[in-house]
């Protein structure tokens, strides 16, 4: 039973409930796997092995008492280090919060703890979730398990790498412009960004509050459904969480997508997308057709403004959100002066890394007098146009399909120009601006590296995109492949 870490969550859950394996056994296998491959992958900012074993024992007690158990009870899970965990460091990949221990749990953590998960650790990320490669972590870059010379995507690169390498059975990340879907694509996982408001943001350290959502990484659609179900739903502590009832995501996985109308946005075939990505995605679209979906080209005419609008709106919100890091209340604090302003400026100079500073600067500039109308207000109007594009298309279509990322995983240090890095999210950003849901799924390989297929669904249509993802897995085996580590 040395390969227990290769089980899916739903398979492991079955074995746990039948008491064929124990959670302690399952957890030990994962901790052993962490000892073996983590030195190469570097997915974690913190491995919580003692806590994990304690939670596993608790889970086994629950199994022994025959309590009404949750599908995640006793399952080893990794958490992105931007989600607050009570009394456990939550660094956001930043020197600023290197020693920060939140006094409370995020709502998502409360729900996961109630379900009885085993938390194996907190995962590495681009600082404050700003980046597409995890190279902007203040601590160290994370490596892609499929090729250790390459990045795992970002900003939730640690959460993706942990699941892809078998160090956790599932994980959670956050997606502001593609930070779940792009790393999911680059590591051969299912990475889902829920509809804005589907999941509580309470206790998610804020980057861009009108865009941020927490979502899961899994190795298949059925596991993703379980992971989403556990965290979905309204929360009185997040005024933007939606009262729209959640669906039964597992029950939605019928395997049948006959007659489903799937659009292929013409504007998503952009110059600069690698030929290997294009051919894998086109082949995957054929599979959807063979499954009986009605696939047709559609147009989202304002797509070309997406990245530019996002790089005004997200930095503007970030510059406001990150003004809280002033060295007074918590976090890194420059002490070597008695001058209040100098202390604040030096705290932020030494506490933040280059990408965070760049975005604070960009956001402050876009919001400053004389530029507000030309940049911020205009970007928000374009956001309306992008949303209207989706509204029109979703009046006639159930879902959209596209590449998740223009490239496969690139090498560490390969992209040094900030704007080139921003273009990694060209296909994922529009969904955040519009608030709709999206998922990246294993969609083939190009030169041995995973290619992600993105499925976009209308507001609160997570059930539809997961149904397509699951049906796709019935006719492909990409999701079953493992990296050799």
């Amino acid at each position: 039973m040395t390969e227990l870490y290769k089980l899916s969550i739903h398979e492991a859950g079955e074995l746990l409930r039948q008491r064929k394996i124990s959670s302690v056994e399952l957890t030990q296998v994962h901790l052993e796997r962490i000892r073996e491959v983590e030195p190469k992958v570097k997915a974690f900012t913190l491995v919580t092995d003692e806590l994990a074993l304690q939670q596993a024992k608790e889970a086994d007690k629950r199994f022994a008492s025959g309590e009404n158990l949750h599908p995640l009870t006793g399952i080893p899970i990794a958490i992105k280090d931007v989600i607050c965990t009570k009394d456990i460091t939550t660094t956001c990949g930043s020197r600023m919060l290197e020693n920060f221990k939140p006094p409370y749990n995020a709502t998502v953590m409360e729900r996961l703890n109630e379900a009885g998960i085993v938390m194996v650790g907190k995962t590495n990320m681009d600082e404050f979730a700003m980046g597409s490669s995890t190279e902007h972590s203040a601590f160290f870059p994370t490596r892609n398990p499929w090729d250790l010379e390459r990045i795992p995507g970002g900003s939730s690169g640690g959460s993706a790498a942990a699941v892809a390498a078998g160090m956790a059975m599932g994980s959670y990340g956050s997606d502001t412009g593609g930070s779940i879907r792009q790393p999911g694509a680059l590591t051969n996982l299912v990475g889902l960004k829920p509809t804005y408001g589907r999941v509580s943001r309470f206790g998610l350290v804020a980057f861009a509050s009108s865009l941020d959502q927490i979502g899961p990484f899994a190795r298949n659609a059925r596991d993703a459904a379980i992971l989403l179900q556990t965290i979905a739903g309204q929360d009185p502590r997040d005024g933007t969480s939606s009262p729209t009832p959640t669906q039964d995501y597992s029950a939605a996985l019928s395997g049948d997508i006959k007659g489903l109308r799937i659009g292929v946005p013409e504007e998503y075939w952009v110059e600069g997308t690698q030929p290997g990505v294009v051919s894998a995605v086109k082949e995957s679209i054929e599979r959807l057709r063979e499954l009986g979906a009605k696939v047709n080209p559609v147009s989202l005419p304002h797509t070309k403004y997406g990245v530019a609008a996002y790089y005004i709106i997200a930095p503007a919100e970030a510059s406001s959100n990150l003004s809280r890091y002033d060295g007074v209340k918590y976090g890194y604090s420059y002490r070597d002066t008695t001058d209040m302003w100098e202390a604040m400026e030096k705290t932020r100079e030494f506490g933040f890394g280059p990408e965070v500073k760049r975005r604070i600067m960009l956001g402050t500039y876009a919001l400053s007098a004389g530029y507000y109308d030309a940049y911020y207000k205009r970007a928000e109007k374009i956001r309306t146009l992008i949303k209207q594009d989706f509204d029109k298309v979703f009046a006639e279509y159930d879902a959209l399909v596209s590449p998740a990322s223009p490239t496969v995983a690139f090498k560490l240090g390969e992209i040094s120009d900030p704007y080139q890095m921003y273009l990694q999210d060209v296909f994922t950003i529009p969904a955040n601006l519009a608030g709709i849901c999206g998922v990246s799924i294993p969609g083939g390989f190009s030169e041995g590296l995973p290619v992600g297929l993105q499925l976009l669904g209308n507001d609160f249509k997570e059930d539809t995109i997961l149904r397509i993802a699951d049906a796709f897995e019935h006719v492909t085996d990409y999701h079953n492949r493992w990296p050799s580590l």
Partner: protein
Amino acid sequence: MIDRETVKNVAKLARLGLGEDEVETFGNQLSAILDHIHILQEADVSGVSPTAHASRLTNIMRADVPQPSYAPEVLLANAPDQDENCLKVNAVLEEA
């Protein structure tokens, strides 16, 4: 084009200390990024109202009932400096 003076002015607005080399680098990088973002000026946005967030919810209220809060020592546990259950900061007002 973002010149050095603009960089320094924006950094001051953000209370963000920058090294001399960063002033140079950010000037060049922000100029390049804004060149790309210039595409926004091409879009026809006449008569379009802005979208600030995607939730389409407005005025979510909760019952006005007091809830228990945290003990001061819990909230101050991460404070860089404290005194008598208060955050300790540098003098805000200059001495005359």
